[in-house]
């Protein structure tokens, strides 16, 4: 397909952010932060997040990567910069979305510079950032 600036990237949904996956991820990352595996620790925070664990940042980036892989192919990501305006909580449905902002050539590759975000239907944008993706070799 011939992609153009302004086109939206086909979205990718995580139907249910899972506390079980967060626990597995905490072990892989050796992440001692109880926010990722202890619902009571999150409930005790003054942020009103309820009794739900908070997803690890790298998992949120992983959802964005999955969207980009589904669109442009595995191994397409050249750069991903993400910021975290809101927490992603267990049990939520979240959707990765993006838009092409520029298409350029560099070292024989066609690159797309995109704005990307992870959204929740009610809470809006949870993660936001920029991605550079290799669309193809010239």
């Amino acid at each position: 397909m011939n992609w153009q600036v302004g086109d939206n990237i086909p979205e990718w949904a995580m139907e249910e952010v899972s506390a079980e996956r967060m626990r597995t991820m905490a072990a892989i990352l050796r992440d001692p932060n109880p926010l990722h595996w202890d619902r009571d620790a999150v409930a005790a925070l003054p942020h009103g997040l309820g009794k739900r664990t908070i997803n690890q940042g790298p998992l949120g980036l992983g959802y964005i990567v999955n969207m980009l892989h589904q669109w442009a192919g595995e191994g397409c990501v050249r750069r991903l910069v993400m910021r975290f305006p809101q927490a992603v909580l267990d049990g939520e449905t979240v959707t990765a979305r993006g838009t092409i902002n520029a298409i350029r050539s560099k070292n024989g590759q066609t690159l797309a510079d995109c704005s990307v975000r992870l959204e929740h239907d009610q809470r809006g944008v949870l993660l936001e950032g920029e991605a550079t993706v290799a669309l193809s070799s010239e």
Partner: protein
Amino acid sequence: MTLQPIPSIHEIESIEGHRFPGGTYRIAHWENFLLTGCTGAELLADSMAHPSALFHLPISGSGTSIAEMFALGQAESDLSIMIESYDWEFFQPLREETDYQVSGGIISAKRCTGDDGNIYDRIQFQFDVALNDGQAVARSTVTWHYTRNTL
């Protein structure tokens, strides 16, 4: 709320330039299998590791840990760390069962004041991942806020 002592600006700024020991890391198949599954994806082709490995690979490979990174900024608790951003650059895909050389350290450490008037310390870590022959593979830049007396 009882206020906890805040590290001095000098203590925070003095960690800028800190280097981790450096070392190697190999993503095992089981590890990539579990990590990829956690993201909701299927295993990638040709033993490609999921890019989300670019968080823990450089941290472990450079000879540090999340716990040590918290401690270097004198985090009040594990709960007090907020993520500003993660910046991942890939010069080639990560692969399972490949030895990577990793170096890293603290490239910036500054005292800041938020829009709400609260003090926090903004600490930026950067890690470089390369093959044994020196070819650059990836770079990870982690920027965290060490909040003070907000919990």
